[in-house]
């Protein structure tokens, strides 16, 4: 263990001042479920680590039509809320009880694929992220937060403090397909949220996990069902489009070839679940 100092701020201002003081070399950690395995194995050798467990960044609050989820809210806390069923479903399908007691909603946005299942659901829900830094705060759509494999829109001195989720979306579906039923990395994860106008799809969000360098939306697949009444041919067109658009990868869990085909299968099944 080469860590020289473990910093445990008690508030957001304290956390931000520590980031300003120590700069980009400071490793920011919340639940530790991503960072600690790397530190334990000596793959990550940070000099200073800031833990956010006691920084007061957890908790869920409903404000009008928006659910504000503190970045350090645990996945167990997310599972306990009932304002957004899709997030419950995503939390239930993520890791195991002990890990859900530690891992955080904010941390899930930094979890490289095939992890990050909650982030897939958040993307389908048009979530926004609130970032705080020395120059103040800003919010941006989660879709703009992801910029590449393990890269994001955070400036070096900014901290993710809250995830904001609209609670108005009614029709959703979530399927995580893995090699086991529980506590498993995804072959592919599909999260869908749609709104209908007069029985036809007005807006559609189809988000995929383990099918790109970060959770992605598949715009052509979404376009394929907009205006439809989710007839089976529209669903098939969406599944075909998602297979073309996705950018899966090969790892120990599945090959790129297999993942692409499973994207087609599970986008179709998730849309059928919306119909039912």
């Amino acid at each position, binding site marked *: *263990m*080469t*860590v*020289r*100092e*473990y910093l*445990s701020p008690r508030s957001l201002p304290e956390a931000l001042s520590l980031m300003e003081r120590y700069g980009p070399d400071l490793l920011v950690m919340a*639940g*530790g*479920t991503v960072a*600690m*395995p790397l*530190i*334990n*194995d000596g793959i990550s050798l940070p000099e200073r*680590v800031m*833990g956010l*467990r*006691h920084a007061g960044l957890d908790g869920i609050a409903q404000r009008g039509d928006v659910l504000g989820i503190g970045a350090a809210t645990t996945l*167990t806390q997310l599972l306990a809320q009932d304002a957004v069923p899709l997030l419950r479903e995503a939390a239930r399908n993520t*890791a*195991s*009880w*002990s*890990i859900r*007691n*530690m891992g955080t909603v904010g941390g899930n946005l930094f979890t490289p694929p095939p992890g990050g299942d909650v982030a897939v659901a958040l993307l389908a829900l048009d979530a926004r992220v609130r970032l705080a830094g020395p120059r103040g705060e800003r919010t941006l759509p989660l879709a703009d937060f992801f910029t590449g494999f393990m890269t994001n829109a955070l400036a070096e001195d900014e901290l993710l403090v809250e995830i904001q989720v609209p609670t108005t979306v009614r029709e959703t579906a979530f399927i995580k397909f893995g090699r086991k*039923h*529980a*506590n498993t990395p995804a072959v592919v994860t599909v999260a869908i949220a749609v709104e209908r106008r007069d029985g036809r799809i007005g807006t559609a969000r189809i988000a995929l996990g383990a099918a790109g360098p970060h959770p992605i939306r598949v715009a052509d697949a979404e376009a394929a069902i907009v205006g439809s009444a989710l007839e089976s041919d529209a669903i098939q067109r969406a599944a075909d489009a998602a297979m073309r658009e996705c950018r899966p990868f090969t790892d120990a869990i599945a090959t790129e070839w297999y993942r692409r085909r499973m994207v087609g299968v599970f986008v179709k099944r998730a849309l059928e679940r919306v119909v039912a």
Partner: protein
Amino acid sequence: MASTIVTFELAGREVEVMVKPMTTLQAVLRYQLGFTSVKEGCRQGGCGSCTVLVDGEPMMSCLLPVEDVAGRRVTTLETITPDEGVHPIQQAFIDHTAFQCGYCTPGMIMISKALLDHDPHPTREAIVDALAGNLCRCTGYEPIVAAVEGAAQATAGKGAPR
């Protein structure tokens, strides 16, 4: 690498340990305090053999900097084992031969304890779900699930004792 002192509650007592920064709770319990039920398995949060309870909630102690449990109550297999005899969950594991090599057993019993504290009459599905993060390479899990069901009956809805 200045060492720091961390205080937490263990077995009804305040314990104070001097640690290097970010020493895991697992390492402190096993190597500094001799609580050898807390196994060092994968150190990745992937196997559950280091499961302990922090303020009653199961956590992977290999992923927890001990600084984060300052002031909190830590429960291990040692702390729930009575001076005489064994805990009802331990007895149920014996009765159902719910182990072979025994390496996963302390973690399995701790997650089961947490489950029965939260839900004294869990369904089979709830048991399987609770155990999902704890790996056993010997038993095939069936005797472990049966042991937790047996322990739930033995404690008759009163919850598992401390």
